[in-house]
């Protein structure tokens, strides 16, 4: 009990500096774990979101913009393509599935996307993972005259939509109450959460969006993009050659995973900045452990000398000071988990609201074990310098005056 008692009493005697130091370690630990988890999980989540489709066909323009618009429902559409282009790729022998989508309207800021019922019935988000509707609802009718909609789970939650509710769409991708369409749509069902950007969308029949009042009648058959599943990956390179190299009218964004990876590589500098900040905070925290214990050494010298006079060996004193630093690290690491869950809760909420992608806060990541361990080791290392000072405490000079 000797060592735990010495450590406990020392921490109690210097409670304020213990709390402040452990707090800075918690901040460093929480930041590091959050940055790492958000980085790895968001990359994995975005990549798996795009994995349902191999490619996207759209108007001539940026591949990234096309993928962001058609799969993540972000950014403006780069333009339209003719219905015949959709039919051409749908009938191509290398293509397994082709689903057209049309965008251009919203409901109080949430996008309306026109598509075919096959998106819900023929496509799996991941192997074995079909799109389903929450109890009490159903997919919209294939007949555009029925004017039915299916709401994504997040959009339905935020807009308070449930089966049987009606709404008027608004023109454009951003909400402007003056641009209300005359059509009235009825919610046929709400999708079960998919943890993908689909959750942030209100789906209506393709034809309904194409023929919405106020839309240009000359574009009434155009589509914004076509989501493509291929029969074999090699076919993608053939279509890439055909659309992107030989043609100059359309863009074939393939492979989707690589394009998303390019997006992350473009913003990787931001990850590195965050990581650098977190590493600096970690270093400052370890330095503060060193400074805090080192500064308290003068006040503790007498106690250490008494312990030595009672028979405590130098290595016991050295071990006590290093262990104390490590315990501060452990306390900080534990508090770091609290900061991690709070930070990740906030960040996950923001990412979900902005993209529909859901990160799994509770999922175990190696960094959740490695980071606290590294912090404790760093703190113990920070304790070595003051421990050495304690080790060299001159017992006789520190104790009673010579008589």
């Amino acid at each position, binding site marked *: *009990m*000797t060592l735990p*008692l*010495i450590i406990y*009493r*020392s921490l*109690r*005697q210097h409670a304020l500096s213990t709390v402040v130091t452990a707090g800075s370690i918690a901040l460093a630990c929480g930041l590091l774990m959050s940055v790492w988890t958000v980085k790895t999980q968001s990359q994995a989540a975005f990549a798996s979101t795009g994995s349902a489709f191999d490619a996207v066909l759209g108007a001539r323009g940026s591949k990234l913009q096309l993928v962001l618009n058609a799969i993540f429902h972000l950014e403006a559409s780069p333009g339209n393509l003719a219905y015949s282009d959709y039919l051409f790729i749908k009938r191509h022998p290398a293509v397994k599935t082709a689903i057209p989508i049309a965008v251009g309207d919203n409901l109080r800021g949430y996008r309306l996307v026109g598509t075919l019922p096959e998106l819900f019935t023929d496509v799996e988000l991941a192997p074995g993972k079909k799109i389903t509707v929450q109890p009490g609802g159903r997919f919209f009718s294939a007949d555009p005259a029925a004017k039915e909609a299916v709401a994504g789970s997040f959009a339905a939650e935020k807009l308070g939509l449930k089966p049987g509710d009606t709404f008027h769409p608004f023109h454009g991708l951003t909400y402007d109450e003056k641009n209300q369409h005359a059509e009235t749509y009825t919610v046929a069902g709400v999708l079960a959460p998919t943890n993908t950007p689909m959750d942030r969308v209100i789906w209506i029949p393709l034809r309904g969006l194409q023929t919405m009042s106020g839309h240009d009648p000359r574009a009434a058959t155009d589509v914004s993009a076509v989501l493509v599943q291929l029969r074999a990956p090699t076919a993608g390179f053939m279509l890439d050659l055909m659309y992107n190299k030989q043609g100059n009218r359309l863009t074939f964004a393939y492979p989707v995973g690589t394009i998303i990876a390019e997006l992350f590589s473009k913003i990787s500098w931001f990850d590195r900045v965050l990581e650098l900040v977190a590493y600096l905070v970690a270093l400052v925290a370890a330095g503060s452990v060193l400074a805090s214990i080192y500064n308290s050494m003068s006040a503790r010298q*007498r*106690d250490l000398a*008494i*312990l*030595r*006079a*009672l*028979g*405590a*060996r*130098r*290595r*016991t004193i050295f071990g006590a000071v290093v262990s104390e630093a490590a315990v501060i690290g452990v306390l900080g690491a534990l508090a770091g988990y609290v900061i991690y869950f709070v930070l990740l809760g906030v960040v996950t909420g923001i990412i979900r609201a902005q993209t529909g992608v859901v990160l799994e806060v509770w999922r175990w990541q190696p960094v959740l074990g490695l980071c606290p361990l590294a912090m404790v080791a760093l703190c113990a290392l920070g304790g070595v310098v003051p421990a050495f000072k304690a080790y060299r405490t001159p*017992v*006789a000079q520190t*104790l*009673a*005056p*010579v*008589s």
Partner: protein
Amino acid sequence: MLEVADLKKSFRSPEGDCVEIVNVAAFALAAGEQVALRGESGSGKTTFLHLIAGILAADAGRVSIDGAEMTVLGESRRDRLRADKLGYIFQTFNLLQGYTVLENVVLGMSFGPCGADRAHAEAVLGRMGLGHRLHHFPRQLSTGQQQRVAVARALANRPRLVLADEPTGNLDRRHAREALTLIREVCRENNAALLLVSHDEEVLAQFEQRRDFAELNQAMKETAP
């Protein structure tokens, strides 16, 4: 039990001169023997006790405790020997202010051969009349009570040799008498040798064996005017 031979210790003065503080040719204590050393402030008594306890390393000479020669041991082995064989009662108590009364005694025991025997520590403190103060901190105790904690801590390990440096210097007459009686009684029970240094004649008068440290310490004789 204790044998001291040709023990020397010098310190460097602020002026840079080498000043000899202790120079004891011979001193011995048998097991169970109780000796009081008379000495004025600044006479080198505490340094002498520190040398015996191995808190200070001697420049020359020999200190042997229960057959183990302190002066040839490295610092770590000296710490071990001190924890195993010695009980030290400091003039200024040297209690650990951040620890409770019980923790002060238990911690002192934990470095010695008995280990942290909580029940024994409680019993010793009970005997010192501190059974109701086990969980108090030293600052919450009177001077007399603090002194008794220091005594309890020094004796709890059943040491073979007890060194007491002005143990009653901060106590009033009544408490000084009580503390001294207690120290001598426990030493007798454990057959421990007791070496007490004091300049208080009333304390010294209670000992059958008294020595004058000024006579024992050649260093002070040489520097005396």
